[in-house]
């Protein structure tokens, strides 16, 4: 078991900066998710950890040991590849057993370990097949099996369940999390799926264009995004953004928009004043769809908007709203009665909204 530390790590492919000045730590036995959109440098990071890619600058430590110059076989890691990378000419059994055979482990012990892993992944009936005869989900489980028999000090999983159907993915999320808890092995897990990251990880590192945006627990990432990009990336359906002015009015801070004026709470106002005491501020208000309450009738005190379309989702209902020029998405209950073109009134949840500096994108709160 080992903790992992990346310090000022860069990865350059020629002129392309795939990873920029990355600092990350992952405690021993922890489940760390690296989350980001396609092409943000997640795989590059993982491959540097595995030793498959040169580190352009910076250092990587496993425990106290600097591993920059260690080849993969000396790092004691087990990796699950984005494309599985199974040995096509070997059976599932041989694929899983390969690393143990390389270590010249006793045959009976190998057999026992392979069977145990196969049982855990429910691929026992497939042990004699070759990868070409497996479905995507079975290949993926074989790839995971190959990693877990090793009992390495670090797991590196690169979008291992990205290609599965939604139901199997939900199942595997649970399975993987249980497996990691049972084995207690440090895990670095790359994904572009926020649901995976939020549901499985102890800590999430959100990356964008090679830069670490935010590092924190899933709860922190969701409820206290550090900037507009993270706020917009995390959450499904995504957060609504509305451009506002922030002005002092009668001793309190207000957000003004052609269609509404909203007052910040005392605590929020204090944060803003402390961060930058300048008077007038160009800001962007961020509210998640489920933090907007919609009423189908136009009340005097609410913010007035017009219904564009309603999207029933079974247990919930999404309502597309027009607020002047801007559009908002609200999540309500399916009994919402508004129809296309109806006037309705909104209330924002003041305690959970976010305000960002429009120029820098950084969050005030």
């Amino acid at each position, binding site marked *: 078991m080992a903790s992992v530390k990346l310090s000022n790590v860069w990865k350059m492919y020629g002129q392309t900066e795939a990873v920029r000045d990355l600092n990350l730590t992952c405690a021993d036995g922890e489940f760390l998710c690296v989350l980001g959109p396609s092409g943000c440098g997640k795989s590059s990071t993982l491959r540097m950890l595995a030793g498959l890619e040169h580190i352009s600058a910076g250092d990587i430590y496993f425990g106290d040991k600097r591993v920059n110059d260690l080849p*993969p076989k000396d790092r004691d890691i*087990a*990796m699950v590849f984005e494309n599985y990378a199974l040995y096509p000419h070997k059976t599932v059994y041989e694929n899983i057993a390969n690393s143990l055979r390389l270590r010249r482990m006793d045959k009976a012990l190998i057999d026992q370990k392979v069977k145990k892993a196969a049982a855990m992944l429910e691929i026992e009936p497939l042990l004699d097949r070759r990868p070409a005869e497996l479905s995507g989900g079975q290949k993926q489980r074989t790839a995971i099996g190959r990693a877990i028999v090793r009992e390495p000090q670090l797991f590196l999983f690169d979008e291992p369940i990205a290609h599965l159907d939604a139901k199997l993915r939900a199942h595997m999320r649970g399975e993987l999390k249980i497996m990691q808890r049972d084995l207690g092995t440090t895990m670095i897990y790359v994904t572009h799926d926020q649901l995976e990251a939020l549901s499985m990880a102890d800590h999430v590192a959100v990356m964008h264009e090679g830069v670490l945006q935010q590092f924190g627990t899933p709860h922190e990432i969701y409820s206290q995004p550090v900037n507009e990009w993270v706020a917009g990336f995390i959450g499904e359906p995504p957060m609504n953004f509305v451009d506002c002015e922030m002005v002092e009015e009668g001793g309190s801070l207000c957000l003004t928009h052609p269609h509404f004026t909203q007052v910040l709470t005392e605590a929020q106002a204090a944060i803003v004043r402390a961060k930058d005491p300048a008077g007038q501020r160009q800001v962007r208000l961020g509210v998640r769809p489920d933090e907007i309450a919609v009423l189908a009738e136009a009340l005097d005190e609410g913010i007035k908007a017009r219904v564009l379309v309603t999207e029933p989702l079974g247990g919930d209902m999404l309502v597309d709203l027009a607020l002047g020029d801007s559009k908002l998405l609200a999540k309500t209950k399916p009994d919402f009665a508004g129809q296309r073109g109806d006037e309705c009134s909104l209330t924002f949840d003041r305690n959970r909204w976010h305000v960002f500096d429009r120029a820098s994108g950084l969050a005030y709160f």
Partner: protein
Amino acid sequence: MASSDVVQYRSPARRLVEILTVVFLAVYLVWTVLPLFIMFVSSFKDLLEAFKLPPTGDWAGAWVFFDFTPTVQHYVDLFADNNFGTYLANSIIASLGSALISVVFGAMAAYSLSRIEFRGKRDLFFWIISTRMAPVVAVMVPLYAIFRGAGLVGTLPGLILAYTTFNLPFAIWILKGFFDNVPYAIEEAAMCDGCTRFQAFREILPLVAPGIGAFLVLCVLFAWNDFLFASIIGSGGAKTLPVATKELVQPQNIQWGKIMAAGVVTTAPMMFLGLLIRRYLVTGLTMGAVRE
């Protein structure tokens, strides 16, 4: 998936094409097999019977061809008087030796060229295949001079080296294509499993085995059938079957019986090898194109 059968529709033209195809195949079969057949049968005849002619030149005279008492005397003579045992061994050692060396070094070079990026790689690769562009005769004289200087003329190692000179670039060229078709991720997985770089290379060898097998056969065939190198570089101590056969043609005495027997001894192993690995050879040569 759709079946791979080509759908065909009946029409008079189609029928004609079918007939022509059969006729063509029949003629082609006679054309290719008849000489081998005559060689095979004649090797069991003594000289008088071999040259017996029918009294009249009509088709009925063809039975004369089969009118003989079989004898294995030519084969016995070949091996007892003419040392064909040694020449057969020379042929086998020279062709297998050069094929093995070419494939071992060729696979390693092809692997490096397939996997590693370095400056001048394209030029290097072109240089390697360009050595095969000149006709063999063009380099024969300088090669002979070099080999003589090194004391390699008339020795088996010399002959093996000469064949390898020509097989190796070919091996690199063909095998690189096979390695290019194996995803690098498999070696990466092997390295994560605990392989060194070289072990990872060995790990993927089974995936290029059909290519290597097919190429091994091509190398063997090249050396086995070669006459030019064998007669110039190998002359003296490393005589191979084709050269030895040629020497049965003497100005005052062409030993037809022995020549026929020598022909059978030379052809049979390769035909047998071809039958043995026929399926392998076909998959090997098409695999590079088919795998994703």
